[in-house]
């Protein structure tokens, strides 16, 4: 079980204390979802693209072994040094060893959810290496000693006034200045110094192409590019599922990625790294960390198709109203809720329940992951493994009993309607979690069943 106070619902409760902020958070993310819809509607073949992307990813999962071997061979022929990491620990050690070899204690890093998953920053800092996140949103949460609350919009939970205050403390901007333009310019100046100092640059990877041994990194800010082009060493960190078969498949994914993420037609930079430049060292760390195990599961394998666009976050009514940190894991939102239980079912047993199962996540997913189905299946796994608390267990057992006995079901309906009409005080209490933030509905006098019997025309 998870420590009391740290479950999704408890953390969401905390986030919900500030009603205005929740509304703002909700609206901001919905705004991004609307932009996604507009962008998608402009592409007549959008649904065919989703289907193609899904099929390409299915093909990848069924042939991952050969694609990995092919990628390694081609990348090595291009001059890229390939490393394999079985888990987070090995990934961190590999990265550290490369940095150590160059006797460096300051590195710059662009966005990589994999390094968040592996806890790389903390690991390197414990080894005395300063890590500077160069994506603006990531730098903001880093200065605040927080983790990103969204995979594409890391500081979506921060208000500009708070960022102004944070920059006033750390970058010396004038007190009270909260103008995004001004603050971005201040961050540009601050980070430019680090770019010019950085001799090792770490990036994530959006796609790696087996056929050509190249990999693609997408950003809007240009931070990944500026970092690696100034540095002597480029380390790219990638989960093994990010492989795609051929270069032409990038056409499908790049048409979908940015439109799904933010509603842009494409990110400002989609950089294809095929070889190290003269005098530069280029490394790639291929990380398993549970992925090969997940590959065996018919129920949960599909989550490996994810291209990390964040569309499922923006559309999710639970994410928008509970905030990324309530998911207590590197990747929040619906996709995080089906990934995290695969890492540690016990520790993340609450996350499959952080959903209304409305299915909107599945409908916006550009690679057609059956997210809400998997949430439901994880719930079953959680219950089967005994990771639900007693009250939920009792309620579910009782509900199961009632629903499987028609006569008792009928009687309890009658009883329920009677109680709601005559003794509402029994239901209007804090013990009834449904009553929290809701009014109980007015109860009809008769059930649908009896109404139908009365009114049906034979």
């Amino acid at each position, binding site marked *: 079980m998870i420590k009391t106070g740290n479950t999704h619902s408890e953390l969401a409760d905390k986030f919900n204390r500030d009603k205005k902020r929740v509304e703002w958070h909700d609206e*901001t993310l919905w705004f991004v979802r609307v932009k996604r819809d507009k962008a998608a509607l402009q592409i007549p073949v959008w649904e065919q693209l989703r289907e193609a992307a899904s099929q390409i990813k299915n093909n990848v999962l069924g042939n991952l072994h050969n694609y990995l071997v092919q990628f390694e061979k081609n990348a090595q022929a291009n001059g890229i040094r390939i490393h394999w990491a079985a888990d987070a620990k090995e990934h961190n050690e590999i990265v550290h060893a490369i940095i150590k070899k160059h006797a460096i204690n300051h590195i710059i890093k662009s966005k990589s959810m994999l390094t968040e998953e592996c806890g790389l920053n903390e690991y390197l800092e414990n080894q005395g290496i300063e890590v500077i996140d160069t994506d603006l949103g990531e730098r903001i949460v880093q200065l605040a000693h927080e983790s990103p609350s969204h995979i594409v919009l890391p500081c979506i939970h921060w208000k500009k006034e708070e960022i102004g205050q944070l920059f006033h403390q750390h970058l010396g901007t004038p007190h009270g200045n909260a103008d995004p333009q001004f603050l971005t310019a201040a961050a540009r100046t601050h980070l430019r110094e680090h770019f010019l100092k950085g001799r090792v640059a770490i990036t994530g990877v959006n796609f790696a192409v087996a056929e050509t041994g190249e990999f693609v990194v997408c950003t809007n800010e*240009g931070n990944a590019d500026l970092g690696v082009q100034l540095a002597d060493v480029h380390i790219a960190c990638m989960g093994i599922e990010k492989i795609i078969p051929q270069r032409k498949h990038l056409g499908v994914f790049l048409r979908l990625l940015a439109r799904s993420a933010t509603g842009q037609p494409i990110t400002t*930079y989609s950089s294809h790294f095929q070889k190290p430049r003269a005098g530069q060292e280029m490394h790639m760390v291929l990380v398993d960390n549970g992925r090969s195990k997940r590959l065996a599961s018919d129920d949960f394998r599909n989550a490996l198709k994810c291209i990390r666009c964040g569309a499922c976050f923006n559309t999710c009514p639970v994410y928008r109203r509970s905030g990324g940190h309530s998911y207590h894991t590197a990747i929040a939102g619906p996709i995080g809720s089906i990934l995290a239980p695969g890492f540690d079912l016990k520790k993340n047993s609450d996350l499959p329940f952080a959903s209304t199962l409305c299915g909107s996540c599945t409908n916006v997913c550009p690679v057609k992951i059956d997210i809400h189905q998997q949430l439901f299946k994880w719930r079953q796994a959680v219950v089967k493994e005994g990771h639900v608390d007693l009250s939920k267990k009792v309620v579910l057992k009782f509900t199961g009993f009632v629903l499987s006995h028609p006569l008792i079901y009928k009687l309890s309906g009658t009883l329920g309607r009677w109680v709601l009409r005559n003794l509402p005080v029994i239901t209007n209490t804090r013990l009834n979690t449904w009553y929290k933030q809701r009014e109980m509905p007015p109860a009809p006098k008769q059930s649908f069943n009896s109404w139908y019997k009365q009114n049906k025309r034979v």
Partner: protein
Amino acid sequence: MSSREAILSAVKKNQPVESELPELNFPFTSVNLKDTFIRTLTAIGGRVMDVTSWNEIVDNIKATYSTTSQVVNTIQELSADFGSFQRPSNPHDLKEVTVAIMKGDFGVAENGAIWLTDEAMGNQVLPYICEHLVLVINAENIIPTLHEAYERIGNSTYTLGTFLAGPSKTADIEQSLVLGAHGPKSLLVFMITS
């Protein structure tokens, strides 16, 4: 057993039955490619100028950027006015560049992106470190979508190839769009019809 062998054997054991790759056949609705390209790139913060001669480009560059700008040019046709780029030994030497001028291979109408490779960049850091980026593309080289783009790229090799779409930008602070995050603050594209 090394991690490599362990991972590969686990993947081999656990991967499902292989499924077919789909055919990529996405017809595009016939549009005016040039207009679509200009509209799309303008909407994402770029500026596009339709020109018919190199002289026009020279005049526009001179009119747009201050005379004190440090201009770096990698295009031969413009070397009489803007010099020709000498590859520096250290990319850090380019940190003061105000304006960088280079050729793009082709533009993609649907997303406003321009493909360029290290060959056209002079130095790979140049399109990212300069304050303002100027790209010149041939007006005939505008293609509909990324599918045609990858057909065109084919199996060519490069050190770095990139789709570049607009000036660098961020909306990380309350979703307010700001142009000029870490890379160029502006992008000016000349579409030349000769």
